[in-house]
């Protein structure tokens, strides 16, 4: 988290929040990126897209990264949708988070199978539209 963001909070913000994965158990599964294709694209071997979509909320990232992994600037959470990381790198990212950015999610609380599902879901999300193609963002 940038110092500026820290300064804007009169109480200490969650400095760990870079990419913290958190859940909202009751979020409807249908809330996803509209661009998403129903068919998994380059999904993780063995990962289940629908389960991953659900687990993103249940286990992991939605509070900081959004329901479709689009990222949260305010808390410094990067976009994780359409990740270019390999499953191994993604797993390492989650398991060995620095602690200053996000807590480590060990296999005991976030099993490998669940992580593979989440990875499959994130891989299935198409890239965001080019900002230059969005009139509202070009006529600010």
């Amino acid at each position, binding site marked *: 988290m*940038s*110092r*500026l*963001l*820290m*300064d*804007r*909070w*009169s*109480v200490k*913000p*969650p400095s760990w*929040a870079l990419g*913290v*994965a*958190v*859940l*909202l*158990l*009751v979020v409807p599964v*249908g*809330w996803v*990126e*509209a*661009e998403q294709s129903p068919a998994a694209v380059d999904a993780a071997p063995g990962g289940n897209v629908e389960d991953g979509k659900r687990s993103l909320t*249940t*286990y992991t990232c*939605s*509070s*900081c990264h*959004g*329901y*479709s992994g*689009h*990222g*949260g*600037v*305010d*808390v410094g*959470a990067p*976009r994780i*949708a359409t990740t270019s990381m390999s499953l191994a790198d993604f797993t390492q990212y989650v398991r060995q988070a620095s*602690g200053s950015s*996000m*807590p*480590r*999610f*060990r296999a*005991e*609380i976030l099993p490998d199978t669940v992580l593979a599902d989440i990875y499959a879901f994130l891989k299935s999300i198409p890239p*965001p*539209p*080019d*900002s230059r193609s*969005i009139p*509202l*963002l*070009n*006529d*600010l």
Partner: protein
Amino acid sequence: MMDVIKPLGFEYMSINPHSSSRGLQESIINYSGNRDPELITCLHEEAAVAMAHGYFKIEGKPMAALIYGSVGLQHASMAVYSAFCDRVPIYLMMGNELENPNSRSVQDPAAMVRDFTKWDDAPVSLDQFANSAVRAYAIAMTPPTMPVVLSVDERLQENRIPRGTRLRVPKLTLNAPAQGDATAVAEVARLLVNAEFPVLAVERAARTEAGLSYIVELAELLQAGVVDTIQRMNFPSRHPLSQDSGVFGSADVVLALEHPRLSRSSLMQDATLLSISSHDLFTRSNYWDFGSYQEADVAIAADAEATLPLLIEEVKRRVTGDRQRVFEARRATLEDRFQRALERNRRLAASGWNGSPISTARVAAELWAQIKNKDWSLVSRSDGMNEWAWKLWDFQKYHHHIGQSGSVGVGYSNPASVGAALANRKHGRLSINLQNDGDLMFLPGTLWTAAHHKIPMLTVMHNNRAYNREVMWVARTAAERERDVTRSDIGNSIDNPNIDYAKLAESMGWYAEGPIENPADLGPAIRRALAVVERGEPALLDTITQPI
């Protein structure tokens, strides 16, 4: 009493009615004709004070609030604390009944808020009331501005004035704010002009539109970056010298303006830290709002806005042609940095653009498209909704933004936005409130106040159905302890049932639409709501948003 209060120039007095102020209330209504001040009916004392907070941040002068001295002040206390932290003057009057042992009166009502107010009194005569009422106003408005409290006993309000009593109303003279010591200001100017990479760090530096202009002038004179915590509308958001805090990493000299919490540890180790702040001129100790001791190399205890004209002149006297060339090169570096940040924000805003729930960037962009050619004013905090409004909108004028809350107490934003919108009304400005769902539910009765008093404003919900920051904290803690993170919503989610904010607002006289989940529906909904607001009524859009 009204002969004393009226010349102080209050436009409005918020009130939650109570028996111990009936004498004063009746005088406002009938003796003063309910004008200057006009009573604004509030359904909770905290709302009455928070409205006055928001009003000041647009109008630059206090709004009075009239509440009951015991239970009323207990309700109002968090809002008083927010105003204290935000250095906002509130003129708080409280009814009390010291001669009635059966009443819920209190011996020293102001004691409860004395840790976060600037001055209080409980006058026992009309003559003392007159002195204290005028003094309270002057003290509240002297930087550092803060809330003041007057306890007004029922006897003073209702007892007949004995025939032949001679009373007079003291003339109000506002204090000129403290200006920095000339020698110290000259030293600050010398250090800034000779710096290789000076940066201005601003927090509550601009009290008025003039303060904003001074900061722009100083920054442009020096071609110095400006890092703004946006507690006030200090600096234009699209000015190329507007920078994020990463610029501190290059700064050899940092001037903190009304920014006493800027820590030396956030700067380069050998950076020179200068400070102009009114903080130490008056503060309290029990409730901490001051952070670590600043360890400035030059510290000037003075009002920054009042000191800036002198500092600007001192800087002008010292700028040479050689330094000017250095300044211009610095400007190019900062402009490039600013443009890259703007482009990065555009790119990030596109992520999740078509998603449902709606991304907070999409909400901000859809709003901006429809308000940017109007005389708009953001009457809520800008640090909600992922700060997208600040990142995407072009904030230039002082009334474009009221800054943040001071205390970060939940429940401030909704009533403060209504108070700010009340101040904007006579100027014909379009008031926009980006409203967190959890905050709205503290004082939902404020919606009725806005409708009843015909205060036009557009409220757009950041409805993520949770206290989302708290979800983050609990999940963080669970992960660190290697426990179940899947239960972190317990105590934090606001669902099951989902709150229907549109129905809530409609029930209190607002135009409302929602829940809106499809981003494609948002633009047309904003258009319809703005048409209502421009007719002079409040409107609310319940947008279901991403968590952050």
